[in-house]
């Protein structure tokens, strides 16, 4: 095969027309392979140069090379045009309605009592408290007697207990027995919280259940004072409910603390003015006091050398306040429509 100038002209005309009309980048790429690839007419023409007489070879070669350069240039320009068009029309060609959002990925939900306990643990672990656990099936010594609640004590009226068959074991009515167990097995300094389920034979209503959740706090060290208790309660309540809340400490009575106090936090709904969900602007959140010397002794700690404070709160009550739950019974209700709100 030989090459002549007319062939190169035809190749040039054909290439210019086809490059200009290539509809998209894929077609252009295909065209590039066809025109400049190993099987393309121009490559064949260049290959045929060798067979030309020497005097024609140089001119034909120059001619073919300039055509190749021209085609490459045209391809590049057209490629750029096509790219610009493609990017420029993206908004129209690939438009989607981004406001149509199918269900997000379903996740499991953690129980509100878990969530509130997490917060409580985090708040107290920042100031060096450990978590201690105790059995829910208790004996009378740890649940009552060691806490200054002998048989016939009026406090037993408010803590009507479930007894097991043997008549000696009962379901703990509060988390306070953990205080005794922990003191018996540890030496001061002690800083713990003890969360868990407690049980009382109470009629159930929106704020009472026969199974509910408390957490206990206990600090024993040299020279612990009521001011330390007050500061701790304020730190806790403001961490949990917000730094704008006010805390009120009033006198109270528990057999296992002396002096005993109660703590209330200002109502978040009425900011202390008084409303339906609070008592004259205040919400009771916990009972507390300085550990009674006899209770320290019952825990094997000498009240001459150590003092301490203890506090106890209803985890479910805190969760109700924090998460706006108005019926305590919901926590044990197992209804996924409720559980999935958390």
């Amino acid at each position: 095969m030989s090459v002549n100038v007319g062939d190169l002209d035809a190749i040039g005309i054909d290439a210019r027309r086809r490059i200009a009309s290539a509809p998209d980048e894929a077609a252009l790429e295909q065209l590039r392979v066809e025109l400049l690839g190993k099987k393309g007419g121009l490559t064949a023409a260049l290959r045929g140069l060798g067979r030309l007489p020497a005097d024609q070879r140089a001119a034909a070669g120059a001619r073919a090379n300039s055509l190749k350069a021209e085609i490459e240039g045209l391809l590049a320009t057209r490629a750029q045009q096509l790219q610009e068009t493609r990017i420029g029309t993206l908004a129209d060609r690939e438009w989607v309605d981004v406001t149509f959002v199918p269900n997000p990925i379903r996740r499991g939900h953690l129980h509100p009592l878990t969530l509130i306990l997490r917060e409580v643990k985090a708040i107290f672990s920042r100031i060096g408290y450990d978590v201690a656990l105790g059995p829910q099936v208790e004996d009378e010594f740890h649940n009552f007697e060691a806490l200054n609640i002998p048989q016939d004590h009026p406090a037993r009226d408010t803590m009507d207990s479930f007894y097991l068959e043997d008549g000696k074991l009962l379901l703990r009515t509060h988390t306070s027995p953990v205080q005794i167990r922990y003191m018996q097995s540890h030496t001061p300094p002690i800083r713990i919280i003890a969360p868990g389920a407690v049980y009382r034979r109470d009629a159930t209503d929106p704020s009472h259940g026969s199974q509910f959740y408390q957490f206990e706090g206990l600090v024993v060290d040299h020279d612990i004072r009521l001011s330390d208790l007050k500061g701790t309660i304020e730190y806790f309540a403001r961490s949990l409910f917000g730094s704008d809340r006010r805390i009120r400490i009033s006198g109270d009575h528990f057999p296992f603390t002396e002096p005993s106090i109660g703590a209330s936090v200002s109502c978040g709904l009425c900011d202390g003015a008084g409303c339906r969900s609070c008592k004259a602007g205040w919400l009771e959140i916990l009972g507390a006091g300085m550990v009674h010397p006899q209770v320290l002794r019952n825990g094997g700690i000498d009240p001459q050398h150590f003092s301490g404070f203890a506090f106890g709160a209803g985890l479910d009550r805190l969760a109700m306040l924090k998460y706006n739950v108005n019926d305590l019974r919901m926590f044990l209700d197992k209804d996924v429509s409720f559980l999935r709100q958390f």
Partner: protein
Amino acid sequence: MVISLSWLRELVDISVDVATLAERLTLAGNEVERIHDQGADFEGVVIAEVKGLRPHPNADKLQLAAVWTGQATVEVVTGATNLSVGDRVPLALEGARLGERRIKRQVFRGVWSQGMLCSPIELGLGEDATGILILDDGIEGHDLHEVYPADTILVLEIKSNRPDLLCHLGIAREVSAIFGVPLKPPAVPSDRPPMASKLTTIEALDGCRRFVGRLIKGVNNMTRPPAWMTARLRSAGVRPISIVVDITNYVMLEMGQPMHAFDFQHLNGGRVVVRRAHEGEELLCLDGFKRLLRATDLVVADSEHAQGLAGIIGGEETAITLQTADVLLEAATWEPGSIRRTARALGLRTEASQRFEKGLSPALALPAIDRAAALIGELAGGKPTSSVDLYPDPLKAILIEIAPDRIDRVLGLSIKHTDAESILERLEFKIERSDGRLAVRPPDFRLDCSIPEDVVEEVGRIYGYDRVPSTLPGERVPVRDLYERQDADEIAREVLAGREVDEAVTNSLISADGTANIRLPAAPASLARITNPMAETRNALRASLLPGLLEALALNARQDQAGARLFEVGPAFWRGKLDRVDEPRMLAVALHVPSGGAPAALIELRNLQAILATVRDRLAIESTEFRQSQATGFHPGRTAEIVDQGEPIGVVGEVHPDVLAQLDLPGRAVAAEVLFDRLTADGRRVPQARPLPRFPGVRRDLTVVIRGKIASNDLVQVIRQLGGYTLRDISMQSEYQGPQVGAGARSLSFRLLYQADDRTLTNDEVAGIQQRIVEGLKQRFGAEVRS
């Protein structure tokens, strides 16, 4: 405790407003629960007498009452059904005000009503909205305020250690201490008639700490009680009855000591005995109920039989009547436990029993009876003729010594000694010594103070805890010993929530008989039972969390939430030897598969196994192994035990159809329960980095077809054995059953990773090992290789 502010003002000067008074009482530990302005809710309401009643001509539920206003008879329409002719009632005529509302003449179903008769709630005099307030006193035509004068009522919650505060004098003493103003106690004469010990015997010495009696003769019980006394009784919520009874109630509300008055002429033998009841002895009580007594109940009897339940309620036979002339007054101190037990057993709580249960001081009895006897003499004309005071074991005075800095040290503040002493003196503590060491004597009516901390509390609560600074304890913060298992359950919760499982908390108490029988093989078959359950559906402690979770699936399915997926972390209760109950912590998961039958359940079972393996992988070093098994309540062919170092620690499988049927749970369910602390191997996996491989690994897939119930675990073991040290990892990829492998056969795909530390493995080398494995599987299990 209901306190009348006007009564309180007679006992102590109050110069602050009611809100401040209530706030300070609350801070001192006597919470004011409610404040109410009595008599402010009505105006222009008069007292009227019902003269006649007739049905409303056009309405079944209404009647027409003709009432006499002292000047005229008017007719009013009423819906109340508690009226009788002769009743005195509050009448609101045109122009009267009830709360915000003005009363007008009005037509009810065609009949004119000239006004309205009022119920307690409409008058702000009680909660009762069902009937008209029937008055015990008052003159027709006079303003209702003559019977219910304007007063402020405070309702206080008194702590159980302070029965001395269940009276106006007690609260007045608190006010005196809080505001530093003088107390004005009532005058109590102490001239007593001679002792007549034969009037009383205490046989039950363990039930009665003190018995003070006074015989008063020649009383005129028909005397009208003075208006100030009946008004105060009404303000305190006590209905006036007759002058003698009113006086005993008045003194109780004033000084805190409950009293009882016997009609002396009806006491057989003219004397009383304190004894235990005879088993089965009957007593007709003042409330009209006949009660059967037990041998543990304490009674006050005459020579014949019981005439009153000591400290709880009197008997009808010797009750005071309008004709009573001779009165035996009793002011006793009963042993609290005995009163509490009897009151509970009979379900009878009275003003008296509530005070005695809390342990009243025996010191209160004598001044109270002196006061009551004087009032009876003054107002009802009686004359005290003899006294009794049996007090076998008098209170011993207590001296409490307090180190000088003790108050400051316990409270964490510095209070002036004079301030502390003045608080104590206002509370009637005697300061015996205040030089260096403080020595105080609590007043004889306070039995709750015996140690220095009690005295510190008195100072603290009156001084005000709001004046205590806020500090945090010590510089010596103990080193926190991270509670590993606590953190482990948080990680488990996150893994489960990430796999679309919701956390539930279910009741520890279940029904011993009605609960689905499904549990870990290791759990005991018999439950720890409750002797005094509140309901038979909650009479035992759960030995497994699964019944509760499966019930929850059924409950949700019934509430249009089929397909619930729940987990719980919490204790099971395993009855152990003797009097022990173990409380192993469990992780339980239950997934409802409402539709899709066996294949869908299989997918969820695989999911659940993967979830458990992931939890373990996050927490423990050991990998998770499942072993084909059986367990109560689980599907016999679709259950695995979870194995830790050769020991079963849990179970996972499809729930048995019988259990589903019992729970009425449609479709299928898969469930798992594991000993949580074993699953996490009691610890926390700490990731350990290894050097990255220097030579590339070679991945090969291996698919074999097997027949029959062969566990892939067994195949994996053989593969591992034959693979040698260059076989680094085996993972199960897929399982197939169907036409491509023929009936009864399964194809299992594994992915194997070969790698050496010292060279790049050649294809031939790997092919040789694969061949060895294939032959081994063929020989052991008859497995055929598929390309």
